[in-house]
């Protein structure tokens, strides 16, 4: 935990400096008749962020916060395994949307999650994976007229569009 606290504070400090630098693309000073320039607000806020990160690092050096004293592991084997599996499957879910669209990606994700991670029966897995896209389609595409991305499966939906939209 102690190492993670320092690494995070340093990464966030670098990010704050990047934000400050990025803000200087706009005027960060006083513009006559216009008040503070467009970059001023994010610039100074990012500056405060940087100060806060330095403060956290000082606390780390002085060991004055619980995290800077903790000898507990930041992520144990179980946490890393869960994070990689669950986080990875969520990334897969979003990435697949670009290829097979929401209606291809969602069933694949649900099949994987329920069957492989949850070890549920095939019957339950298949039911959830089949029902979810149908509900989503009628709610978003049909009722709310928010056309979700279909990827390469778009042509399969033309007949459905003709009926419902």
């Amino acid at each position, binding site marked *: 935990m102690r190492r*993670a606290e320092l690494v*995070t504070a340093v990464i*966030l400090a670098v990010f704050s400096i990047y934000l400050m630098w990025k803000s200087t693309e*706009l*005027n960060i000073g006083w513009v006559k008749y216009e008040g503070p320039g467009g970059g001023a*607000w994010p610039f100074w*806020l990012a500056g405060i962020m940087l100060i806060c990160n330095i403060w*956290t690092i000082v606390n780390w050096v002085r060991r004055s916060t619980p995290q800077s004293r903790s000898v507990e592991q930041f992520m144990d084997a179980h946490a890393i395994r869960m*994070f990689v599996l669950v986080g990875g499957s969520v990334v897969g879910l979003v990435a697949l949307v670009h290829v097979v669209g929401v209606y291809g990606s969602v069933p694949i994700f649900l099949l994987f999650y329920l069957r492989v991670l949850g070890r549920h029966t095939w019957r339950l897995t298949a039911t959830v994976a089949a029902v979810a896209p149908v509900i*989503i389609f009628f709610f978003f595409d049909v009722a709310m007229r928010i056309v979700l991305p279909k990827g390469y499966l778009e042509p399969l939906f033309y007949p459905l569009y003709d009926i419902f939209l």
Partner: protein
Amino acid sequence: MEIIQHLLDGFLIAFEPLNLGLVIVGVTVGLFIGAMPGLGSVNGVAILLPLTFLVPPTSAIIFLAAIYYGAMYGGAISSIMLGIPGASTAVATTFDGRPLALKGLADKALIAAAIASFFGGTVSIILFTGFAPALASVALDFGDQEIFALMLLAFATFVGLGGDDIPKTIFSICIGLVFSAVGMDIISGTPRLVFFDITGFLHGINFLVLAIGVYGIGEMLWTIDSTRGNPSMSKVQISVERTFTHMKDVLKEWKPAWIGSLLGFFVGILPAAGATPGSLMAYGISKMTSKNPEGYGKGEVGGVIAPEAANNSASTGAMLPMLTLGIPGSPTTAILLGGMVIWGMVPGPLMFVEQSDFVWGLTASLYAANFFAVVINILFIPVFLWVLKMPFTILAPVIFVLCLVGGYAPTEDMHDVWLMVIFGFGAYLLRKLDYPLAPAVLAIVLGPIAEPALRQSLIISGGDATVFFTRPIAGPITIIAIVLLFLPLVQLIRKKRKKAREAQS
């Protein structure tokens, strides 16, 4: 009398078939969300807000407020049955709710929670109805200076009263404000903070992207990490006869109910405080003033009543500053406020004049939501118990899918969905290091209001920052904000002096 007339008009809106239906559905959904460990009102409202684009704004907010309300009732269910709070707001309910359940009195605890929630909810709505129009009429005179001073106060309460690590809290506020600045600079009209020239950043970072990332994906990862094994559920007997005897017992406990209701309401108004500290404080005070303080923590019914009355009362209290001043009193109301902006409304005191249907419809629907919540809660206790047995490996993927479509719906841009996933992972990792994330969500909602208020104030004054101190209303607010900002520092110095004195003697 005018208020009663407005309220009656409000009831006509709240009892329109669509709105009444949404209240009932919202309360039921909220009860389930609240009962699920790891999900609270803020998660429910953040994930489901995109679904409300289907109905008119008044109906949408009525639905979301009903979810908010229902979740406050529902949080108690898993606190009592599983011994783990269904939401952070129900933490205090576990102290006595769990021991009661272990004694075989789970049904008594559940009924006490339901009735106390109803009582707290009713008291706070009456207070809300009385206070809101008065506060709004004062706020009508507010200019940019006052608005910015109020924003400062909202953020200062997080630093002064939030109780989290101070540099991390300030960091969280600032990063939320910076994210809200991404996109177009409203005053000069130039693109700003377009990271790596990715065009997706030109339309800014929608607050829902951060809210769903933090409260949907981040929260799920956190819950999967922290719960690990399946928690065990208490056994419960339910019969009509037992229910009535319990009700009689519960109705005798009026003192903790009043303490919880009043304290919850006023603590709920403060942006950083809200339902969780409100319920903890109510528990503490109820224990202090009880005739039987030793019984608390071992299964005293008052220990369930006080926090449950408080958390429902606080949820209404949090709506008071949201509707009258445009400053949300809790993360959930911050998301409601963001929703109002999406629906094309300008939150703040003018709503009482220009959108009085909306305001009074919502107020009246809170009365209705409160009524339905207690009825549905008591009738559905067996169903909730059954649902609590549902494994997390079914709930979690369904929520992830809801996050995906919910993140896509507001802007219809896959860029936002990716950003949401990144925010979710970041939120999970930061939360493990105790970075508070609620201030960031509040800040991304308030940023687009705070920045123009500050800049316009400075333009009007010609760069003179003392305007925030010299104006009659802005002055005191700014000073209170600054006092709150430095409060933790003062406390630290006092602690050190005390230690030094003790060391000397």
